[in-house]
């Protein structure tokens, strides 16, 4: 089997064939999810814990639904109810959860690298649901699936990633994935929201949105966090919208059949015009949500297969899993 990873901590460790295998399996789950009876037994009897140190509704529900459709027992733990508030360290939380023998641990944390640290301490498969400004691999995979279904391929496409690149794990995972699949990536946004060393990324960097969108096949908008809006990084919402908000005029610089993506939740009138977001001919934002469940099912299915195989090997060698 192509997909060998024990955890899904990022896109960086994945090979192009591994990425393709996740997307191919996800296609079958897209079909399953469109049926009335959306049930598989891939995770039957397994326990999935969603451990969210950072608030999330969309990603957490997507993972929860994915696990349930695969037959897992799913438990949600969010920071508000957890002992982290009482001063427990990240590692103690991990060890506590580990003692409950989960099989899949889905983790979101506000610090880059926190999910990797946790993965070292547990005996189950860990999925990174977003760590700080580092990676958000399932988002990049669902974006890739959405693009592949709309454009028929992932190579030789011009993809413009626009907005707050510096603070975005979505941008980082996407540019790694699309780079591995040999697409051409452009980063577009204010210089104050570009990551340091951006010139060495091997992407084209544009401050002017019209130049950045010229002949793009895919326009990927990023969410502008509220705390960046006033004065520190950009002067105001209205100036940001004027210069980098996606409206019909700016989109006209992209290819006529360019698709528009957004990881959500959107700030209409800040980074994207409402009519563009709702344009069924251009916007694939709703498809991204649908692909999200399918991709997460595929990723968890593949990790579960590897986990079972690993435990099987351990038993055969006389140890215990």
């Amino acid at each position, binding site marked *: 089997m192509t997909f060998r990873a024990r955890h899904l901590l990022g896109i960086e460790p994945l090979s192009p064939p591994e990425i393709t295998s996740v997307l191919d399996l996800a296609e079958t789950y897209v079909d399953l999810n469109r049926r009335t009876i959306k049930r598989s037994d891939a995770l039957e009897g397994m326990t999935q814990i969603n451990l969210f140190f950072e608030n999330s509704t969309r990603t957490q529900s997507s993972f929860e639904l994915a696990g349930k459709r695969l037959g897992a027992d799913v438990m949600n733990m969010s920071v508000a109810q957890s002992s982290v508030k009482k001063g427990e360290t990240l590692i103690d939380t991990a060890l506590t959860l580990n003692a409950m023998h989960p099989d899949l641990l889905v983790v979101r944390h506000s610090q880059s690298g926190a999910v990797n640290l946790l993965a070292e301490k547990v005996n189950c498969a860990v999925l990174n649901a977003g760590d700080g400004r580092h990676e958000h691999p399932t988002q990049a995979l669902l974006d890739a699936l959405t693009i592949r279904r709309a454009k028929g391929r992932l190579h030789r496409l011009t993809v413009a990633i626009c907005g707050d690149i510096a603070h975005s794990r979505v941008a980082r995972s996407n540019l790694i994935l699309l780079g591995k699949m040999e697409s051409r990536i452009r980063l577009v946004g204010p210089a104050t929201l570009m990551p340091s060393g951006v010139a060495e990324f091997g992407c084209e960097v544009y401050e002017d949105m019209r130049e950045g969108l010229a002949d793009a096949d895919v326009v990927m908008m990023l969410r502008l966090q509220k705390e960046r809006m006033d004065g*520190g990084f*950009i*002067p105001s919402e209205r*100036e940001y919208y004027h210069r980098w908000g996606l409206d019909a005029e700016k989109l006209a610089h992209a290819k006529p059949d360019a698709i528009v993506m957004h990881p959500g939740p959107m700030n209409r009138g800040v980074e994207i015009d409402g009519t563009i977001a709702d344009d069924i001919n251009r916007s694939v934002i709703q498809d991204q949500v649908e692909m999200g469940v399918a991709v997460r099912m595929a990723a968890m299915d593949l990790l579960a297969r590897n986990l079972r195989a690993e435990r099987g090997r351990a038993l055969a060698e006389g140890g215990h899993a």
Partner: protein
Amino acid sequence: MILHFTNARLIDPEAGTDANGTLTIEAGKIAARDGAPPEGAKVIDCAGRCLAPGIVDWGVKVGEPGERHKESYASAGRAAAAGGVTTMVVRPDTRPPVDSPESLDFVAKRSADSIVRVRHMSALTKAREGREMVEMAFLRDIGAVAFTDGVHVVADNKLLNRCMTYARGLGALIVGHPQDPGLSKGAAATKGKFASLYGIPDVSPLAERMGLERDLTLVAMTGARYHADQITTGEALPALKRARKAGLDVSAGISIHHLTLNEFDVGDYRTFFRFTPPLRAEKDRLAMVQAVADGEIDVIASFHTPQDEESKRLPFAEAAPGAVGLQTLLPAALRLYHQGGLSLPQLFRAMSLNPARRLGLDGGRLAAGAPADLVLFDADAPFLLDRFALASKSKNTPFDGARMQGRVLGTWVGGERVFG
């Protein structure tokens, strides 16, 4: 109308020449140099007097909005015309400050009262508080030529770094006030024997170098376009030289007061001699005159700061800093010419050509096609300055009663005579 100036001593800062000739202007622009008078032209005999490109005065304070009793656009425009200033580059430190497209729109409308050209600078941060950057793109699009918080130094390096990064993408010019804000807080004189004997709170001249080094380091980090509003100490010059050598896009200015006065002029607590930064030692003044001659300092300006009598009739350290200067900039600058420190083309390079170029304006030149913004003056005519004869609403000049040499005879803006 076609005007033909004959028998003029043409001061051309672009060519660096000072020679007799003629100049023809038509339709608001300079049409020809050293040609015959065209048919129907009105001939003006300059009788050997100097004709130079009008002054572009960088850093003028007008009291609108908020302090109109100190100076309005109408009164500032009259003072400018009488001083040979054809473009006032106005500061944003009004009450409230010019820090939004709406406030810039207001002052742009008010400036229609001025008989000379007006260009506006915007604040760099909202309310000049150093916390949030202004809407630089909107402001630039409606005419802001530069961004500055004036003497309010942005103390937060991270914020200034982001302002510069954002400005770089727009190609916008940031004007800094090189001064360490902590050291210079409350200071009204330059550290030294004079300040000590008179008991005036003082600041080391090196605080200027500290501020400049900080600003230039951030310029190196960000690649922003930067202008230091006033460099007044010799100790700061090496930093500026290094930055230029490193290829940074930097320039610097100085006020005419720091080129013609020194710390001793304060004398018996004369508050009309209180400036920000404070007047310096004579050796620094001489170093700065040399720096202008060498082209290390690009711009000489008046830093026209009207203050009413109440703001000045106070104990020295409590008095408001600054002086009016629109009308005295040229005669004061001519002191440097008469003393032999600077030639007339050098002076007009610093007062007209360089500020226009740096701000992207089309003035400061005598070449065909340039706007017909001109000043005709007698460089030698002596007079005693009477502050109450100044056109400004405020009369706070340090040159009251001083012997000056050099009188403006006529000022033209876009070919229209606005003075003389």
